């Protein structure tokens, strides 16, 4: 009980001393909140995307087989499908036709996919919500596609994909095989890549090895690799961003150091007084510790809360320009909110720990001031 009383008493004095220098400490808190806000926003958004990807992509094909020529993608002969289909454990092999279409008039990139079951008749297409929004075209609208021989192909929108799925479908254009081949003059008997369905994922590595052995010019991409790519890409990106923000963090630490060392005459008198009336050095250190804690805790909590609001309530509006980059189509998505202990712990180690470390020496200098300085002033 004594222990708690003592902490409370000392906290009282610490808070009073913080409040007395409102301007100075408020600016510190604002800077601190800003740093934490930025860092936690980055962590929230990358983690939310990672989770989304790992859930949504669970049903992605177990394996995709591409053909590489001189290190670049090439069309796969559909005959490869028969070879691969004979491998034990492969449930089915299908040849996929897909590609990109660069719309020169507005600079957007679409992903074109051939889907035999959804699009049965040539001339009609289904488009993602992003494409429809961008072209301000709805159902029954027509989109002109410039074929590679310079002629135009007018395709009619049969329906627009649901907006809830925008995160995976914003830039999609589903079309018939005939239209696709006509558009790109793709030779018969060739496909973009092969998709393998495998029931027992345990067999994937064996199958991949066999595919490469049978067809040495191919590259199998397994679902695990796809998911791992996402984990790595987002971890790496957010790590990179944090390294960039390290500059801001350093600036903030210098500010904190500066605030902690620059004692005003009044503060000095105050510490001297406390020591004169019987406070030990460790009590003063404790007071300084509580001052730091008060600043850290307030900023830490405020920063995290603001970041959460920013990412999950306003869909990362501040980051949008950076995420968009040069892309013309940008999905309108809402991330599934998620918050966990590791975020908090990591942020704690990135901000509170360096802050505390930066203020120890100045606090100690203050705390070991001579008690008789109050008499000599």
């Amino acid at each position, binding site marked *: *009980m*004594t*222990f*708690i*009383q*003592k902490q*409370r*008493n*000392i906290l*009282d*004095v610490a808070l*009073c*001393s913080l*409040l*007395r220098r409102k301007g100075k400490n408020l600016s510190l808190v604002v800077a601190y909140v800003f740093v934490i806000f930025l860092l936690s926003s980055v962590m929230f958004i990358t983690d939310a995307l990672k989770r989304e990807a790992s859930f949504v992509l669970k049903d992605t094909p177990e394996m995709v087989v591409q053909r590489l020529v001189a290190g670049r993608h090439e069309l796969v002969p559909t005959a490869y499908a028969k070879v691969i289909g004979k491998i034990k454990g492969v449930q089915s092999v299908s040849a996929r036709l897909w590609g990109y279409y660069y719309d020169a008039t507005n600079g957007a990139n679409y992903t074109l996919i051939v889907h035999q079951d959804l699009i049965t008749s040539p001339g009609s297409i289904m488009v993602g919500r992003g494409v429809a929004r961008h072209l301000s075209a709805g159902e029954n609208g027509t989109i002109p596609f410039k074929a590679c021989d310079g002629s135009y192909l007018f395709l009619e929108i049969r329906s627009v994909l649901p907006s809830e799925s925008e995160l995976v479908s914003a830039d999609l254009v589903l079309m018939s095989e005939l239209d696709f081949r006509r558009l790109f003059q793709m030779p018969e008997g060739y496909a973009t890549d092969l998709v393998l369905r495998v029931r027992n994922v345990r067999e994937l590595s064996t199958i991949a090895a066999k595919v490469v052995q049978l067809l040495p010019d191919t590259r199998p991409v397994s679902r695990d690799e796809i998911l791992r790519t996402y984990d790595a890409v987002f971890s790496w990106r957010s790590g990179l961003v944090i390294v960039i923000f390290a500059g801001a963090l350093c600036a903030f630490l210098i500010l904190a150091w500066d605030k902690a060392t620059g004692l005003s005459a*009044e503060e000095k*008198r*105050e510490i001297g*007084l*406390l*020591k*004169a*009336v*019987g*406070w*030990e*050095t*460790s*009590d003063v250190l404790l007071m300084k510790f509580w001052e730091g804690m008060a600043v850290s805790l307030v900023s830490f909590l405020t920063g995290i809360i603001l970041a959460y609001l920013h990412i999950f309530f306003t869909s990362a509006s501040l980051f949008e320009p950076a995420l968009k980059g040069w892309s013309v189509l940008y999905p309108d998505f809402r991330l599934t909110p998620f918050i966990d202990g590791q975020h908090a712990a990591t942020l704690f180690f990135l901000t509170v720990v360096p802050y505390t470390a930066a203020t120890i020496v100045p606090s100690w200098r203050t705390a070991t001031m*001579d*008690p*008789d300085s*109050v*008499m*000599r*002033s």
Partner: protein
Amino acid sequence: MIEIKNIRKVFNAGKTNEFAAIDGVSLQVDSDRITVFKGPSGSGKTTLLSILGCMVRPTSGRIEVNGREITSLPEQFLAEIRRSGFGFIFQQYNLIRGMTALENVMIPSYPTGERRSSLKKRAVELLDLFNVSHKAGSRVEELSGGEAQRVTIARALMNNPRFVIADEPTAHLDTKLSREFMDIMLGLKTEGKTILIASHDPVVCDSIAVDRLVGMRDGRITTVDDRR
């Protein structure tokens, strides 16, 4: 009882601007007495009070407080002795702004971790004793000079010390308030406190309450005038 033997305090030792603020002082301060140190500024009064109040260690010499040798104790125990044995009244009052008068009085007891209610009770009683309890809740910025002085005295008595040390306590008070201050000191003496004052104010030095007047100059004791 405090006994100091052959105390020297040297500042800036080993440098060109080295000087001895206290230069070989021996003195015995008896209990239940008011001792006043008189002398011009720079005579070493304040330094001597700091040494007597266990705020600084002397460069050489020995100090015994109630028979206990304290020169070699580490700082944290000096702080402990200061807290329990000494009350300080400063020339500038040194009240902490932004806090109420009551909190200022309680500050010396904060590190003990005593229950706040009992701390508060004691502090209010002290403020009451000096007729400033009506100001307990006001911030110290709002106090007049006399009230601030009395709050300072209350703070000095918070831990019920044996010794009260006052450095130029009347420097900012008019004659009436200075007289009042000496009356309070007299009252404390009768309660059994030992009081040490550094002052060159005639109101203090000539007060009938003073038992012993020590004259100082250039870090040495020049005269000792026992009045009883």
